[in-house]
C-alpha cells in the first residue's frame, strides 16, 4: 500500500506511473524504487536464491545486500532498491542464474 498522506511529510506522491511486473500492470509513483513500488502492490518476493531456491526480497534498501536483484528493462541482476521506477518499466523476478554476456565465442 502507498502512503498517500504521511504524518510528518504530508502528501508527496504526485506523479503516478504504470510499471509491469511479469507483464501485469501496477501503479507506482515517480521517485519510488522498483522494490518499494512492488511492495506497495503486495509483491514482496523478488526472486529466488540460486542454490537453495529460497524466496528473496528487499532486505537493506541501500544497495548493499544484493537480495533484491531483478531483471529490469531486459537487464539481469539489477538492484531493484537502487533503481527508480519509470513509466512503462518492465520488471521480472530473477528466478535463476543470469545470462552472462560473453565476448569470446565458445565454439
Amino acid at each position: 500500500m502507498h502512503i498517500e498522506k504521511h504524518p510528518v511529510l504530508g502528501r508527496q506522491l504526485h506523479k503516478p506511473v504504470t510499471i509491469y511486473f511479469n507483464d501485469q500492470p501496477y501503479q507506482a509513483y515517480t521517485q519510488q524504487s522498483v522494490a518499494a513500488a512492488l511492495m506497495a502492490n503486495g509483491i514482496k518476493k523478488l526472486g529466488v536464491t540460486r542454490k537453495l531456491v529460497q524466496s528473496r526480497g528487499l532486505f537493506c534498501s541501500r544497495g548493499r545486500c544484493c537480495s533484491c536483484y531483478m531483471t529490469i528493462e531486459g537487464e539481469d541482476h539489477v538492484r531493484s532498491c537502487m533503481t527508480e521506477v519509470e513509466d512503462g518499466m518492465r520488471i521480472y523476478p530473477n528466478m535463476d542464474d543470469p545470462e552472462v554476456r560473453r565476448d569470446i565465442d565458445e565454439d
Partner: protein
Amino acid sequence: MKTDVLIIGGGPAGLSTAIETASRGLDVTIVDEASKLGGQLNQQTQALRPLPSLYESMRGFELANKLIEQIKDYNVRQLLNHRVVGFYADGSAGITDEENVFPVNAKKIIVASGAAEKAVAFPKWTLPGIMTIGAAQTLINRDFVMPGREAVIVGSSDFAMETAIQLMDVGIRVKAIIEKQSGALAKEQEKVRELSRSGIPFYFNSFIKEARGNGQVEQIDVALPDDVITLNVDLVCMDGGRAPILDVLYQLGCSFGFQEELGGWIPQYNNRFQTDREDVFIAGNAAGISTHGPLLLTGMIAGISASEELQAISALEAHEIREALWKELELLEDKEMHSGRVKHLEKFANPVLKDQFIY
C-alpha cells in the same frame, strides 16, 4: 576528469567536507551511488541532536536539504547514481555510471562511505518481509510505502525505538520489541517509556527462534526465557547495529586498526583524519560509528585538513579551526566512543604493526 578533491559518499560527512573544501575555492567532486545527495538523512524524520553549534536542531531530511543548499553556491561536481569500483595504476579512481567506467584523477580523496546495517541471523531470516530497521524507515519515509501491517522489532537501540515510533505513526501495528539483553539499550529512555505506554510488550532475554511463511514471512516463534510464543506478522525489522563500509579503503591500501568502540576494524588516521596514505582522508561513520553531530564534525576536520594540504587555507588557521572542532567533537560525542577515538589516534602515532591485515 580531473579534480582537486574527490569525495566518496554524499551523506552528512561527505557534504560537510564538501562545504569546507569547496568554500575555499577548491574544485570538488562528490560521487554517490544514490540518486540524491544527503545519504541516510533523507528518510530520517526524527529530530537530530545534538548538532554542532553551527546548526540549529532539526530533522534529518531538513539537515540534508540544508547541506545540499549550502554546496550550491560553490564549485561542486555531483556524480549521482555513480559508484567507485576500483583504482587505476596511476591512482585515478575508476568510477562507473553503471554502463561505462571512467577515470577521475584527484589530488586528494576523502572517503565518507558511511556504515551498513548488520543482520541478526535466525532460521529463515532471509524470507521477504524480514528487513533491517533502516530499510523499513526508508520505505515509509522516502518511498511512501507500507512495508507491512503487523511488525516486530528485533533490538532496542535508539534507532530501533525511533523507527518503531515512526512505523506506528503511519499505522503499522508493532506487536512486540524483542531484545536479547535484559533491558532496553536505548539511551533515550523516554522513547522506551512512550512505546511501553502505548501497550507494546518488550520481551527481554528473548530472541526469534524461527520464522515461517510461504514466499514471505507470516509467522515467527519467539523464545522467551521460559516459554516460546508464536506471533503472526508480515514484517520483521532487525537492528543488528552498524559496521563501517570500508571497501574503497581496502582498495586504497590504507592500514587498519581494531577499535571496538568505533565499530571494529577501521582505517588508522591521525588528528587530521588523514590515513597513512597521505592523499587519503576519511570522515563520518567510515572513520568509526558515531551520531549525527560528530559525523558532521569529522567531515569538517577532514575538509579543513585536505584544504590545508592543497594550500587553500594557511597552516596556522587550519590548526586553530581543527583544535576548536576537536573540542566540540569531545563535547558532542558519547564519552566511550570518544575515548576509543583518542586511543585510535594513538595507534596511528605509535603503530604496533604496520599492516594489521594479513592479505
